[in-house]
């Protein structure tokens, strides 16, 4: 070690209130960790490859090509965001405890709630980042396909009768409308709300379990149960105990609006707001439950 004098930088604050700054510092660090890890990159690359190659597999009739691309890409975004929500969140707390990095953080004037929230927000940043990346590519794929289809239609325009030209113009307009479908944003928002809720469930499980497998399997099972809640209600309608158990599980079926949008059905903003609020409300409740467990946990 060199002979530099030990600095005497004073810490001015003598009160330690809840700090969003500290939450942000932990969140950014969590995001950095995830981005520099191979697991996250693996899922994201898989997602991007599927989305990027969607147009190559669109061997359908002219009108169905855009529908196929949208169907595939929304499906990929939904699956990959759910996987990233589970896998990205499941190892957050166990790895901190296992590597003892949590000791160095909680030995500083950092509240456990700030730490937990920072970890969760880091996971959400990761979700937003990955969904944004997939959406950008999705948009690019749609735009390239749209341009290709318009070019193809335009080539048939010259030399046509006025009536046929009008028909081509209508087809071009239809392609533009389908490609630039604002309702796709609704489907993505719904996916984000769903993935956020899945991440919060994973966070809750990881506050009392140190097993990575358990932290992945249990949220996944809860997610599957939530997806099947509607069908299960029909099957087990008479079984009160089973139905009460099922009522605890969030209804993930509510978030599946991509099919409706792809079929051309109008999904009103009020419905999307309702879904997002449903997801947010449950996320808040679950994060509070996670805090109650984590604040009492011995590290």
């Amino acid at each position, binding site marked *: *070690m*060199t002979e*530099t004098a*030990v*600095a*005497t*930088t*004073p*810490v001015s*604050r*003598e*009160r*330690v209130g809840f*700090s969003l*700054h*500290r939450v942000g*510092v*932990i969140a950014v*660090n969590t995001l*950095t*960790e995830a981005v*520099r*890890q191979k697991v996250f990159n693996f899922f994201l690359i898989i997602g991007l490859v599927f989305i990027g190659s969607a147009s190559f597999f669109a061997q359908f009739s002219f009108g169905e090509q855009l529908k196929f691309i949208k169907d595939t890409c929304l499906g990929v975004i939904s699956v990959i965001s759910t996987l990233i929500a589970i896998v990205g969140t499941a190892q957050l707390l166990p790895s901190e405890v296992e*590597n*003892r*990095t949590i*000791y*160095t*953080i*909680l*030995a*500083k*004037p*950092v*509240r456990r709630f700030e730490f937990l929230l920072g970890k969760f927000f880091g996971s959400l940043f990761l979700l937003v980042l990955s969904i944004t990346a997939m959406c950008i590519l999705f948009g690019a794929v749609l735009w390239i396909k749209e341009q290709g289809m318009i070019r193809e239609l335009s080539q048939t325009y010259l030399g046509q009768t006025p009536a046929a030209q009008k028909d081509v113009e209508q087809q071009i307009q239809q392609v533009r409308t389908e490609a630039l479908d604002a309702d796709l944003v609704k489907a993505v928002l719904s996916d984000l709300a769903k993935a956020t809720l899945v991440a919060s469930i994973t966070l809750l499980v990881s506050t009392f379990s140190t097993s990575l497998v358990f932290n992945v399997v249990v949220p996944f099972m809860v997610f599957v149960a939530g997806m099947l809640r509607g069908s299960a209600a029909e099957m087990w309608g008479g079984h009160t105990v089973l139905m009460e158990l099922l009522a605890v599980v969030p209804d993930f079926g509510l978030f599946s609006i991509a099919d409706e949008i792809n079929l051309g059905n109008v999904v009103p903003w009020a419905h999307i707001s309702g879904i997002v609020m449903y997801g947010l409300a449950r996320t808040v409740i679950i994060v509070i439950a996670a805090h109650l467990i984590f604040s*009492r946990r*011995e*590290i």
Partner: protein
Amino acid sequence: MDAIRTEHLTKKYHLGWRKGKLLALDKLSLCVREGEVYGLLGPNGSGKSTTLKLVLDLIAPTEGSAWIFDVPCSKVVSRLHVGFLPENPYFYRYLTGAETLGFYGKLCGMSGARLKKRIEELLDLVGLNRARDRRLSGYSKGMLQRIGLAQALIHDPKLLLLDEPTAGVDPIGSKDIRDLILRLKGMGKTVLLSSHLLAQVQDVCDRIGVLNLGQMILEGDVKTLISDQRRLTITVQDLPDAARARVEEAVRAAGASVLSVEHPRTTLELLFLDALKKDERGMGHHD
């Protein structure tokens, strides 16, 4: 004001169903005075790390209480002036040395030029300037220990809790850490040091406490504890044999006994450090 005070601090761990409880710490009443270096000694499982964890509120006591600068340890504000180096620390392996210190500094409310300056000072202090932009995954154990010390010092705390600070560090690094502890003491810092290396503790600590099976079995001032008031060592240089015989005779005439006459030995550590100092290529780390 005491830097750390515990009263009847007790910790029992649940071992699981039908296995009962393990008494890790038994009514520990400890007092670490401000400005002193206190050594917490004891074999593995004696309760040293449990004590540190209780003081840092990482675990809850079964009974008793603890305070840091008179603030209950259960309050976050008690950790405002505390720096902690855990045993065998692992940090975020994907961060560089400078990024690691930046992260911990921001957690302590530091930012901008002040944080940047502090990072430079500490990297220089622990001798990691050349490795500042290398990810911690490429650091050796000794380097991790040094970056751990730097993060503990980032907010210039008044109290340092060091759990086995020289574990896995080579003799040069070990001496550096020992020197640093002494310099921190000179600056008025309080240090609570948990260590297995008794010689090191003897060199730096003002007071020690020995834990065994969760109980304090010995505590006191190091110099008082290790000195033998009935025996006296006089070290002389170039004493002729005839003069030595007269000295021994004088001792016997005074009613005392000569227990041993021997040439003083250096320590292996001093010998090792001296050999490295004499090496023309210089002494240092391969950072």
